[in-house]
């Protein structure tokens, strides 16, 4: 049973194209501080007597810990505390990321005790009076190991008799989604295309490393950190053995997160050090530590078998996904669910069989990263579409056209799509932006054009019964306060809420102050992840603003002598109506919001309001693979021209275009920014980024060897925005945070295939790999001729 709760518009609010603030791109709020350099990030915080913290990390990927000797470290002058597992009140974190639906129950220690399971696992903590001393002391902690056999890829982990990463087993979770009869349908297909696609370990590489400051205040452990999720306060309290009310997490504006600050990073360590020393402690992970030991994107191995009729209609798809979860669960169960649920992309497939598993290895843990499983599979399903097109002699657009999902279609999970699907339009608009075909720049160069379509969920899985709250207060002087537990990654999460409130209440943006990200002082909003905050907190603020207006409107109506329904809130005032046809509020008599607030106060009408918005709720049955999965989806297409140098294997991106249906663009400039930034991050994933883990040891532990795109690597990303108005977010918006990273690898692979006639199947598509493909192609051609 699905219960849908949609906010009801209030009469008098601007409708359709007539929005005043929504749909514009004001440069306001935190962005002013950012360009002035005056925003205080997590590391920009200092308290009297503040110590500096350091995590001591294990130096083996799989070993028994025989002893940890902290004598020398403790004796170093300036060291205030050295903490090991014995000092952690509750050293077991059990995450159960899918809510206990399907995964093994595996605990993660805060600090390792008997064994380490990945390179860089925390074994001890240091607090010292300077960072240099803390770093020096970390080197003096002596850990004696006894190496244990490890497993460093999913196949090894699944082999008979494989060493166990955890006693419970190496398979953390298995998701199955089946609909129709895939075996029969595949057998009856005119063509069947098979492919295996692999992806790599990728780092978020936010420019701001993990950081924060922790201190005690009135007996409350207070952490001001770079985090996407202040709700971790509850977990931190458990670790410390404290009541939940004794831990407060404040989220600073983040210097990027991309999912990498969705799990705890510095929090438990800061909390332990502050709790033990009773002094403020700052901890900043250095870049090399962040590369080595923070969570990563899951490498996927994806096997696809796709059946089609000769006209291009897909009849069946069988998908097997193996995700490398690394040494601990983190959010892997949810990531693999997203991969499974989205494995068929924006296409209607009647017979589907998906099995997706997260496998423990002795690699560093993988978890949330923009795209969250639903992005890896785009490389799989789009590759299959291009291969089918090639096999059947159809164009790539044709084969997609005849399979695109439409509103009302049934998904493999048994759900009906409730909103419009504008993926076809996005495909044509993306291709149109590229213009005429590119021409090769010289001999030995081949150009090609590619496309990649996707469907990406926004919002948490429905069985989590998600909710977000927001509190609004019209102040005595007519200005507005917003309080929300939302955290801000840099995408304008807080600023967008201001635009929505301004739209409904007619308060100038400059007259709105928003307080965010404080687990003690703000109503909970849930974390900023899963492309959920515009959807969730956007709706919470929209509802709060509408409900507040409904409450105070009768007072204004009485003073202005018109029915409440005719009132217009605009320009910091309430107007008795709108002159028909003028499009503006022109009545001469009006009330300032300050006057209205004063009148409300005299009448005992509250001018502050808390609103809790609940997403639809439902359930999912992991045994049948049927039930409610995601609230809704964002669709889009990317298109690119590339040039391949057949001598070197170098791929140069010549043009890049991206089009997504965002339902409604609350701030079009920020939407463009999300699309451009997502596409660029995707280009790194497609072509250059790889941590290159060998036997559990990370090869790229320097920022100079882990290659994220710079300004010179790729062309501008052209963007086009579709506004179907059918999203489930505020005013019909869809989320756009994660979706634009999904299409990129598939788009580039599609363009490379067009250029050289071979489909890349491994990411990243490095010159070495492209050369190997060309060599293989020449060999095959030579054999054919022989």
């Amino acid at each position: 049973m699905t219960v849908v709760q949609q906010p009801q518009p209030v009469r008098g609010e601007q409708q359709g194209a007539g929005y005043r603030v929504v749909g514009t791109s004001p440069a306001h709020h935190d962005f002013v501080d950012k360009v002035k350099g005056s925003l205080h990030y997590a590391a920009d915080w200092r308290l009297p007597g503040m110590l500096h913290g350091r995590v001591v990390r294990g130096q083996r990927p799989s070993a028994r810990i025989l002893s940890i000797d902290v004598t020398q470290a403790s004796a170093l002058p300036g060291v205030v505390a050295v903490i090991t597992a014995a000092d952690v009140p509750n050293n077991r974190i059990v995450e159960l990321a899918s809510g206990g639906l399907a995964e093994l129950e595996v605990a993660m220690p805060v600090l390792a005790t008997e064994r380490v399971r990945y390179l860089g696992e925390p074994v001890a903590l240091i607090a010292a009076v300077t960072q240099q001393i803390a770093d020096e002391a970390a080197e003096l902690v002596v850990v004696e190991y006894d190496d244990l056999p490890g497993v460093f890829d999913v196949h090894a982990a699944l082999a008979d008799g494989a060493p166990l990463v955890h006693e419970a087993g190496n398979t953390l979770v298995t998701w199955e989604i089946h609909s129709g009869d895939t075996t029969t349908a595949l057998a009856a297909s005119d063509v069947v295309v098979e492919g295996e696609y692999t992806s790599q370990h990728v780092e978020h590489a936010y420019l701001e490393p993990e950081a924060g400051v922790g201190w005690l205040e009135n007996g409350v452990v207070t952490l001001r950190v770079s985090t996407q999720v202040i709700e971790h306060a509850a977990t931190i309290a458990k670790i410390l053995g404290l009541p939940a009310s004794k831990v407060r997490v404040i989220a600073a504006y983040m210097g990027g997160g991309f999912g990498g600050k969705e799990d705890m990073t510095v929090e438990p360590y800061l909390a332990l050090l502050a709790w033990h020393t009773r002094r403020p402690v700052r901890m900043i992970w250095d870049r090399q530590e962040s590369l080595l030991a923070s969570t990563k994107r899951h490498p996927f191995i994806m096997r696809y078998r796709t059946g089609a009729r000769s006209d291009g209609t897909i009849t069946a798809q069988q998908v097997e996904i193996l995700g490398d979860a690394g040494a601990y669960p983190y959010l892997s169960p949810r990531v693999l669910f997203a991969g499974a649920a989205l494995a068929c992309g924006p296409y209607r497939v009647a017979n589907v069989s998906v099995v997706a598993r997260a496998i423990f290895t002795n690699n560093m843990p993988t978890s949330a990263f923009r795209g969250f499983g639903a992005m890896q599979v785009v490389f799989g399903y789009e590759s299959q579409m291009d291969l089918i097109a090639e096999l059947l002699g159809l164009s790539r657009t044709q084969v997609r056209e005849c399979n695109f999902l439409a509103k009302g279609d049934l998904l493999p999970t048994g759900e009906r799509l409730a909103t419009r699907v504008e993926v076809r339009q996005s495909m044509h608009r993306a291709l149109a932006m590229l213009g005429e075909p590119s021409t090769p720049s010289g001999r030995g160069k081949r150009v090609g054009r590619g496309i990649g379509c996707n469907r990406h969920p926004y919002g948490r899985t429905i069985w989590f019964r998600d909710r977000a709250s927001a509190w609004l207060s019209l102040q005595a002087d007519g200005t507005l306060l917003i309080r929300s537990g939302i955290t801000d990654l840099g995408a304008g999460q807080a600023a967008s809420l201001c635009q929505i409130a301004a739209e409904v209440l007619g308060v100038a943006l400059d007259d709105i102050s928003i307080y965010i990200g404080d687990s003690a002082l703000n109503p909970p909003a849930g974390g900023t992840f899963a492309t959920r905050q515009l959807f969730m907190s956007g709706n919470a603020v929209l509802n709060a603003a509408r409900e507040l207006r409904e409450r105070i409107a009768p007072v204004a109506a009485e003073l202005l002598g018109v029915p409440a329904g005719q009132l217009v809130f605009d320009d910091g005032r309430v107007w008795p109506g709108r002159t028909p046809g003028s499009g503006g509020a022109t009545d001469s008599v009006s009330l300032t919001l300050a006057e209205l607030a004063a009148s409300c106060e005299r009448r005992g009408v509250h001018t502050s309001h808390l609103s809790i918005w609940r997403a639809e709720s439902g359930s999912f049955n992991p045994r049948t693979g049927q039930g409610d999965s995601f609230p809704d989806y964002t669709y889009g297409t990317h298109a690119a021209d590339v040039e391949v140098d057949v001598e070197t294997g170098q791929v140069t991106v010549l043009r890049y275009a991206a089009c997504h249906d965002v339902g409604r663009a609350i701030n079009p400039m920020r939407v463009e920014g999300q699309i451009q930034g997502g596409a660029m991050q995707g280009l790194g994933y497609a072509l250059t980024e790889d941590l290159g883990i060998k036997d559990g040891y990370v090869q790229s532990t320097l920022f100079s060897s882990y290659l994220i795109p710079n300004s010179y690597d790729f062309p501008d990303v052209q963007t086009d925005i579709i506004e179907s108005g059918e999203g489930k977010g505020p005013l019909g918006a869809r989320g756009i945070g994660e979706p634009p990273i999904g299409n990129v690898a598939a788009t580039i692979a599609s363009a490379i295939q067009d250029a050289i006639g071979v489909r890349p199947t491994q990411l990243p598509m490095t010159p070495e790999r492209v050369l190997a493909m060309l060599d293989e192609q020449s060999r095959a051609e030579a054999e054919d001729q022989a």
Partner: protein
Amino acid sequence: MTKRKVLLAVNGRGHEVWVTPSDSLLDILHDELGLAEVRYGCGEGVCGTCTVLLDGEPVNGCLMLAVQAEGHQVTTMLGLMGADGSMHPLQACFLRRGASQCGFCTPGMVLTAFDLVRRGRRPTREEIRYALIGSLCRCTGYTKIIDAIEEYAALAGSQGAPDGVTR
């Protein structure tokens, strides 16, 4: 480690600071002088978030020792701004063009771009891209940053020489 006193000239003012020989210029500017817009991003001189101007030339604050900065003029982004805290026209372009998302790379970007445009001839889009290689951004995809710098370069070109560095 033994500390010694150095005199640092930052944004046109002299500061006496006690530093250890291994303190980086970044450490001192961020932690001792409270110039939080000079930021640690990688410590390898790759990302550019700690960029400052040393006698007008962009350098990585993380790769330079504080003691090496003695006798030189150091300018952070604050040094480009008005005494009343008003934005430099280049910052206004960043704001207007949406060139800051998380904002962490912005000061390094602004100083690098300021130096590029100050050197005279109006840079092409390609030249802007090349100049920014040492300043990484993970949020914007660079397009809006380049737009902002292009706009500022046009503005600076039409109004004669852009504002000078505070010395």
